[in-house]
């Protein structure tokens, strides 16, 4: 059996070696994409463009607004003169947040009544809007708290009024600074690998079919199992190389901490590569032309990417879609990567993920071998 697999492996490597462009396509776009996306993929919100309108012109209103301009969450891009200016700035997307303080703000505060800070948020991007609103509330609460403490001290003395307060201590584990790159850069390792590997393997068989070399292989004594395995070995090695490259960029360039066991990651990577290659090969055996394989790639990769938990939490999806994600190897691999990178969890927690990927790999490989045998008849 091995005697017949090895020539296929060698044949694939020779084909790759003769394709000058292939090496370039494998390395350069991967590196470029990793660097680009590592910076681009984040939900963190800083420097929200803000327009302010102060109709009170009091010390209090200036104090409140200066808290916004000193925060790195907000950038005051425009000082408006009228309500109309604020509306226009938000309509034209010149600002995403508008802060309006009406005349009488300081007076109301002084009387001990509730003084309003009006906030207008462009909700087009609901996520950014939600987070920005959270920061507005934090800054406003800080101002209110300081003002109340100040007032209590001035009027009633320190012991005058007792505040009863329950506060929340935030303990973010595994990513203390809520750094977005720590979440997305490990995720990119899986996503980029998925796209590269499926794309490579999806053409493996259909190209031979279209170019006509499949006929030659069919007349040789090789069996379908051997042919498929022979096809997978080179791609497996290429895939390992790609993952090593991307992981190196993640650790050395983006400084994402790796606290887990490298062997667990290696095992997870191997199983993930097998399952994605099996997927690509199945596509390849299902299609008659390269054009079809190409369309199928789009058809399959996009949902795999979106329904993996890479950027949209699986727990927020409807139940039916949540079930569908169980068939997605990327879903499991992302848990393994993020688990080993940030959490340092090992086999005892991750074994179900590894088992699921192994099962997907076996099922898809068997399907592509059966399918290939059938298409030969």
């Amino acid at each position, binding site marked *: 059996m091995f005697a017949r697999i090895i020539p296929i492996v060698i044949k694939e490597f020779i084909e790759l070696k003769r394709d000058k462009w292939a090496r370039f396509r494998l390395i350069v776009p991967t590196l470029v994409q990793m660097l680009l996306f590592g910076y681009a993929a984040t939900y963190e919100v800083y420097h929200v463009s803000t327009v302010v309108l102060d109709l009170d012109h009091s010390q209090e209103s200036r104090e409140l607004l200066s808290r916004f301009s000193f925060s790195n969450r907000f950038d005051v891009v425009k000082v408006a003169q009228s309500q109309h200016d604020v509306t226009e700035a938000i309509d034209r997307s010149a600002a995403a947040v508008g802060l309006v303080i009406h005349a009488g703000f300081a007076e109301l505060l002084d009387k001990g009544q509730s003084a309003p800070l009006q906030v207008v948020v462009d*909700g087009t991007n609901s996520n950014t809007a939600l987070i920005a609103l959270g920061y507005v509330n934090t800054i406003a609460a800080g101002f209110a708290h300081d003002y109340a403490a100040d007032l209590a001290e001035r009027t009633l003395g320190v012991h005058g009024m007792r505040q009863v*307060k329950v506060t929340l201590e935030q303990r973010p584990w595994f990513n203390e600074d809520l750094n977005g790159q720590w979440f997305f850069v490990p995720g990119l390792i899986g996503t980029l690998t998925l796209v590269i590997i499926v794309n490579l393997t999806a053409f493996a068989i259909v190209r031979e079919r279209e170019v006509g070399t499949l006929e030659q292989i069919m007349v040789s004594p090789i069996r379908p199992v051997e042919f498929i395995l022979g096809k997978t070995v080179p791609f497996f090695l290429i895939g390992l190389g790609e993952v090593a490259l991307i992981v190196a960029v993640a650790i050395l360039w983006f400084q994402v901490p790796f606290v887990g066991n490298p062997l667990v990651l290696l095992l997870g990577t191997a199983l993930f590569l097998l399952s994605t290659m099996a997927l690509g090969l199945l596509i390849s055996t299902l299609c008659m032309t390269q054009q079809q394989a190409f369309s199928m790639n789009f058809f399959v990769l996009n949902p795999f990417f979106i329904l993996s938990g890479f950027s949209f939490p699986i727990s*927020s999806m409807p139940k039916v879609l949540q079930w569908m994600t169980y068939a997605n190897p990327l879903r499991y691999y992302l848990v393994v990567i993020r688990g080993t990178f940030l959490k340092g969890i090992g086999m005892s927690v991750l074994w179900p993920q590894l088992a699921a990927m192994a099962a997907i790999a076996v099922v898809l490989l068997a399907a592509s071998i059966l399918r290939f045998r059938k298409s030969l008849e």
Partner: protein
Amino acid sequence: MKLRRLKAIAVKEVLQIWRDPRSLMIALLLPFTQMFLLGYGVNLDLKHLPVCTFDREGSQLSQDLFKHFQASQYFTIARNVQSYSQVVAAIDNADCSIAIVVPPDFSERLNDSGTASVQAIIDATDDNTANIAFGYAAAVVNGFSNDVQVSWIDRQGRPLQQVQPMVVQSRVWFNEDLESRNFIIPGLVAAIMALVGAQLTSLTISREWERGTMELLISTPVRPSELMIGKLIPYLVLGWLDAAFCLAIAALWFGVPYRGTLFALFVTTSLFLFVVLSIGYLLSVLIRSQVGASQIALLATMLPTMLLSGYIFPIDQMPPVIRDITYLIYARYYVTIVKDLFLKGSSIVELATPILFLIVYATAVMVLAAHAFRKRLD
């Protein structure tokens, strides 16, 4: 440019599309299924996060706090644990996304000093979810704190005093309920169209080379520009069908409010389709092998469109260098246009900037494609 030759090429291309029903099916079904699948999948809203509670005091007060959590639509109490190691296990296994720990001296501290705190432990690997969940948890605790304050003042028999000296009155425009679906689905339409469009045309020339039919085409009197336009027309029609599907699903099925004019939508979509299809064509001219063309098309369109077009990740939060690069991502302009048409109801005049960029893009790609093709013929 002769209309007769243009028509001949278009007819030939239509026949070629028609006689490959599998590819045609994929081209029509792809946007349809993707819209349904992904329309439900793209959601950043958090509801009913599973909470793990660790009550180290077991008092009336701590139970009241948990009732506040249970009553909030953002949290569901999934389990009560008895030890710290169980908290660790629950977070590690992702059984719970947040753990609330009440210290053993919670009521005592509140009585003695007036302030007490509870701990919220979150698996922050997903920083965005963690950030939002902290916000919701803080709001729940705040509400609880106010209740405690009110009942405390009540018991003292004092008149209710103004507690909060300042209130934030916030209004959200364009997407009043802050539903993430409303901003992601219009972007999704743009992303799907960018992908489908490129894959429709990216193989059309390389296929002719690989099958040897290009020699035949070269020997005919057809000119490069006629070949390009003739080949693009059938795909433009196909692309329009796809776009109409996607837009209709977004507005009618997912109920994203559409506030713009249909005319503006028609003009901008046609322009965008033209850009996308001619880019696929350009790739096809540049790269002779189908595998090469498809690999580049996939690399050049799929992930960049997903990550750099502003459809998921806001462009204004990216570092300046990356922000400059996004100008090259043609999907970015259509994402802006579709989002603004849907949510803001912008007019063509207000969308002049992205439209202008698309026109520049279309011209540049056409010139490049014509130039590249001429070179090939030498």
